[in-house]
């Protein structure tokens, strides 16, 4: 910013403005983001490692942790396959209602998780549309694990498709057509040409899906029934401990989730850096 150093003594106006904007922006981030998150790390480890260890190894905490991982292990692969399929359909297919399908995929971003939970209860619940049929076949969806999986899958639905579509568009169809001309079946083309081309977009989508699936609260809170040691996921456990005045238990579980979130952040950054480095070549 050399153009405005018109012989000013000390700080030039531009430099002063820059510094104050920087201070303002960074203070806002510090007060809203960094200090609160730092605070709960401090609160958690304030009393030493002993209470933290017993909070982590409490049976309900351990159960909630594994349940959350189980949900992620089912919902994320489901959404990955579905997301790639939808992305291919939207980017390579030609059919009526394509724009509508595109909007439908983004719908979970516009709907409150609570509303997703309610909608699922209205379909799969006791008095819901499929309630009688499911009960007749001995399947319980609401207040059990299948319901949590469905709720998690719905709220994290758009990520893989969203991240894959632009990569697919950029990739173009040249190499796919070349493969087809050389006699490759559509299956060979997909596994050998398309998928390797879009893999980093897919991985980025998977990271976002995992973070969302792990942290989902509103929808899961409604469909799970929040039964301790049975349908209580880790975020639900945090609420339960907090409302039962067990702040160590709540803070410790929150820190576990925060660490997983920081891991996600790290993965996202490494992936963007890789993409950028590749583009620069």
């Amino acid at each position, binding site marked *: 910013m050399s*153009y*405005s150093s018109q012989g000013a003594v000390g700080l030039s106006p531009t430099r002063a403005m*820059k510094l104050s*904007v*920087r201070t*303002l*922006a960074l203070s*806002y*981030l510090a007060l*809203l*983001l*960094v200090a*609160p*998150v730092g*605070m709960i790390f401090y*609160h958690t480890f304030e009393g030493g490692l002993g209470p933290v260890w017993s909070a982590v190894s409490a049976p309900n905490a351990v159960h909630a942790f594994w349940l959350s991982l189980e949900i992620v292990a089912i919902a994320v692969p489901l959404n990955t396959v579905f997301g790639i399929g939808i992305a291919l359909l939207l980017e390579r297919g030609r059919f009526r209602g394509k724009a509508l399908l595109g909007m439908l995929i983004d*719908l979970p*971003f*516009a*709907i*409150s*998780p*609570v*509303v997703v939970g*309610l*909608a*699922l*209860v*209205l*379909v799969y619940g006791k*008095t819901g*549309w499929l309630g009688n049929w499911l009960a007749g076949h001995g399947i319980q969806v609401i207040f059990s694990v299948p319901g949590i999986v469905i709720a998690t899958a*719905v709220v994290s*639905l758009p990520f893989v498709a969203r991240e894959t579509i632009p990569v697919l568009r950029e990739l173009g169809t040249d190499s796919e057509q070349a493969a087809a001309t050389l006699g490759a079946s559509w299956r060979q083309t997909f596994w050998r040409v398309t998928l390797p081309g879009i893999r980093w977009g897919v991985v980025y989508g998977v990271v*976002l899906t995992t*973070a969302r699936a792990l*942290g*989902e*609260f*509103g929808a899961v*809170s*409604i469909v799970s029934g929040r039964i301790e040691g049975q349908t209580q996921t*880790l*975020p*639900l456990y*945090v*609420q339960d401990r*907090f*409302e039962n005045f067990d702040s160590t238990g*709540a*803070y410790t579980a*929150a820190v576990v*989730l*925060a660490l997983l*979130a*920081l891991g*996600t952040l*790290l993965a*996202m*950054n490494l992936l963007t850096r890789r993409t950028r480095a590749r583009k620069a070549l």
Partner: protein
Amino acid sequence: MLLPVAALLAKASSGGTSAFWREVSNPEALAAIKLTLAVSAIVVVVNAIFGTLIAWVLVRDEFPGKSVVNALIDLPFALPTIVAGIVLLALYGKGSPVGVDVAFTRASIALALLFVTLPFVVRSVQPVLLELDRSMEEAAASLGAGPLTVLRRIVLPSLTPAIVSGVALSFARAVGEYGSLVLITGELPFKTEVGSVYVFGQISNENLPAAAAVSVVLLLAALAVLGALTLVSRWRSKHVL
């Protein structure tokens, strides 16, 4: 996806328009809906200002640790919402180490919503600012325009579409937010109860028609804003470029 939404619409309209209006105009429901829209509107204005400032600092400024700050912006997306609530409560709740206690007040709703919607404006303005041609700004400056004039006449107009798009996304998110509000707002009817919390309460009371009616209102508010965004961006790409 279609089936649950269809079930929701069917439930909301099962009693006809009059039943729908009765549910929506119930004083508690109405208060919750109004509060949701008002706080969301305030939050997106703050987001527009600070989001743009942060994006500007991340693109145009240089300081040590900038890449860490840049990575931290996405933290609210990665952090589970319930953790966001508990984290804010630890610093700005009862027994706050800095002496600020907003728990169970309307300010707490705004605080939680600001936290969870922080990335939207920053992440939509940042790439546009990065691509912005600086020669126009330099030309204006060399013709004698002060930094504020350059900002107002040259930089802001090119950023407006990105700011609007970030604002629309934050608004949709704010209207539906639930997890981060559970612990910090206390869910007090007529005071800190927002729409999503009201819906949750009605589901717990097995009053599904009321829950469905307010859900539809929230959904329409979010869709209206996102729909307007699509129309505006479509109109712009036709008429400006």
